[in-house]
């Protein structure tokens, strides 16, 4: 039922003209659509616990919605909100975290900023430091690739402490905080950078002084949401290509009737369905992990397998989709190029497929083995 309603809503509202209009707008999202999502569909509440005003659902439900968002390239800040929700759930006992979760449930945008992604997306990329100054903390540094950061009223920021890593919340209006929307190759999924210069935050805005171990788990859950978008993106590339080759006539027949075209389409479907099988698995493991029924290693393995498979699937399908569209595939007019750019962006976000495979190889070849479910 959620699938049908998400599919219908996205199809009706996240149309190609709406996506293109949002892309070209200063904020890069469809603000009116975001308002109806938060008021009518309540997708921002899926991962928020009920006692914070959310729906108290899980990653399987989130996966269903994110697949549709990816299918339509919906220009919404939902990913940013889901990711910060997952980060806040790791510190759910903190009063400030509960407050932020309630804010998220009301439809405010909160983003997680954790890295400059040099050289990697993990803790080694954290470029913000926090120094304790009496009852307050002083934050300095830079964060890049903050999802929808320029729309956020508050940001969660990971910062290096004298020892370990902390998680802080700050208002984007605060003195010393500069938010800049980043120009991106994929214009449908806007991001921002944060520059922090002598930002003072109170002790209650330090959500955790020992948060380093949580980052990879939050990123693993994020990879599952991204994987759902990638499956949607791959499926849309396939569907649009099949529709196009069914209409294009050359040599007196539709080009869909050529085996060279059919076999490419079949290969695309194989990639889509393979990634979808891993996505279903990874979403189930994510819910198990959130419920305390699965280990972190199993979650990391599932997320890495999905990121490798869905990253390749989306890029293969969008790239092959351009080829099947022929000349019009490289024009601005057709949407397949938008999927191609989205696929490229997502493939590299939070680690490339080859890096995820190297992680899996490490489990198999350098350690004791993997944790199958």
């Amino acid at each position: 039922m959620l699938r049908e309603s998400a599919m219908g809503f996205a199809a009706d509202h996240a149309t190609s003209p709406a996506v293109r209009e949002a892309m070209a707008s200063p904020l890069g999202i469809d603000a009116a659509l975001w308002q109806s999502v938060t008021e009518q569909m309540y997708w921002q509440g899926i991962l928020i616990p009920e006692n914070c005003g959310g729906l108290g659902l899980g990653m399987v439900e989130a996966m269903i919605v994110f697949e549709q968002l990816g299918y339509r390239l919906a220009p919404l800040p939902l990913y940013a909100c889901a990711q910060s929700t997952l980060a806040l759930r790791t510190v759910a006992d903190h009063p400030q975290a509960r407050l932020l979760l309630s804010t998220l449930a009301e439809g405010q945008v909160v983003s997680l900023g954790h890295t400059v992604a040099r050289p990697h997306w993990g803790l080694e990329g954290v470029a913000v430091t926090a120094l304790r100054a009496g009852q307050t903390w002083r934050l300095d540094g830079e964060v890049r690739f903050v999802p929808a950061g320029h729309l956020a009223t508050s940001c969660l920021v990971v910062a290096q402490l004298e020892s370990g890593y902390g998680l802080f919340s700050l208002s984007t209006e605060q003195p010393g905080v500069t938010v800049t929307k980043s120009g991106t190759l994929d214009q449908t999924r806007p991001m921002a950078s944060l520059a922090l210069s002598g930002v003072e935050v109170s002790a209650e805005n330090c959500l955790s002084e020992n948060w380093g171990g949580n980052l990879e788990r939050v990123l693993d859950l994020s990879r599952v949401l991204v994987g759902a978008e990638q499956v949607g993106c791959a499926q849309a590339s396939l569907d649009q290509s099949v529709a196009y080759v069914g209409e294009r006539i050359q040599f007196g027949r539709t080009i869909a009737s050529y085996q060279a075209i059919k076999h490419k389409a079949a290969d695309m479907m194989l990639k889509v369905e393979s990634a979808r099988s891993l996505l279903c698995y990874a979403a189930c493991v994510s819910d198990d992990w959130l419920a305390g029924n699965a280990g972190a290693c199993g979650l990391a393995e599932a997320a890495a397998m999905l990121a490798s498979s869905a990253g390749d699937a989306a890029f293969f399908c969008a790239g092959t989709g351009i080829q099947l569209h022929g000349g019009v595939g490289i024009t601005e007019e057709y949407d397949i190029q938008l999927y191609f750019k989205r696929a490229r962006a997502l493939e590299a976000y939070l680690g490339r497929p080859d890096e995820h495979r190297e992680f899996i190889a490490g489990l198999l070849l350098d350690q004791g083995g993997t944790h199958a479910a």
Partner: protein
Amino acid sequence: MQLRFTEADEGFRTQVADWLSDNLMGEFSAIRHRGGPGDEHVFVEERKAWEKRLAEGGWTCIGWPEAWGGRSATIEQQVIFNEEYARAGGPGRVGHIGETLTGPTLLAFGSEAQKQRYLPGIRAGTALWCQGYSEPGAGSDLAAVRTRAEFDPGSQQWKITGQKVWTSLAHESDYVFVLARTDAAEKTHKGLGFFLVPMAQPGVTIRPITQLTGTAEFNEVFFDDAVCSADDIVGEPGDGWKVAMGLLGFERGVSTLGQQMLFQTELDEIVRIARENGSGRNPAIRQRIAEAHIGLRTLRYNSLRMLSGGEDGALSREAMIYKLCWSSWHRNLGKLAMDVLGPDAELLQSEPYGLNRLQSLFLFTRADTIYGGTNQIQRNIIAERALGMPREPRGQV
């Protein structure tokens, strides 16, 4: 998608595992892990005896209705049986054609008399079957079969003449089911019949086909006025295609998880060698080993999706990609095995042509992407049935 089985199903798993560990020992120790694809020619007598042992324990035909000696096992229980069978190293089943193809076909399309005559032997593990579908001129295009069946009113028998090919275990089988042309004027899927033919008769000749591995598990079967009785046709003359196609839909993926257990042991062996001989430090090999691991897990979750799908019998999207998926994966695994073995991959373990398991895997997996519908045919099927693209036109030659 359910990642886990119910407690009752897990109880069933224990029952299966216990029985297998109690019985797959002593005289049957030697055949553990033997007789699978690529190895079907070995230990045939021992595997026939094992088939009877399975039958005595009530472990043949578990998916059949209880009325015919089965257990009316659910899909989940059948999956569990196959998983445990593979885990225990259960040998390749000489009875699997009868159990998984002939039996379900007769249950769906057979007459009461045919069921009475043939099902008990299959259930008891005493009557072995082989299949007579492909012909030299009818591979991917199965409907092009030319083997003829003519009814002789004098003897009240069908007389069958023609040639079948790729028939495994033909010389060990008691019966063959044959797709043959009942209407000589027709050339396509019309005018076919589905026949149940005894193998032990003068009109049937078997010739083994030696493969690239040096072994022979497939055969050619020649029919020269071979006979079967008037009531050994399933359905009516002209129904053959319908019966044959129904049969291809019976499997529904219950054996896929068992098959994957076997794949896992192969991958484990390759990983072990890569750790030992240092090839596991090569970044390119590491990528391929990770890909193989991810691919195998994909097959597993693909199967779990298939199994939790609808009961309407319509093939779901994940079922349509399954053959293409596993065959390509397995073929790539064969090549990975060679590359992990390195220079040693070239050396035989004995003359004249004694292959080790991985060499055999490498060579025989080239068949995986061909039999049961080539990868090219699978891609046509996916494009046409799942994606609704235009069907290939029939030629006139």
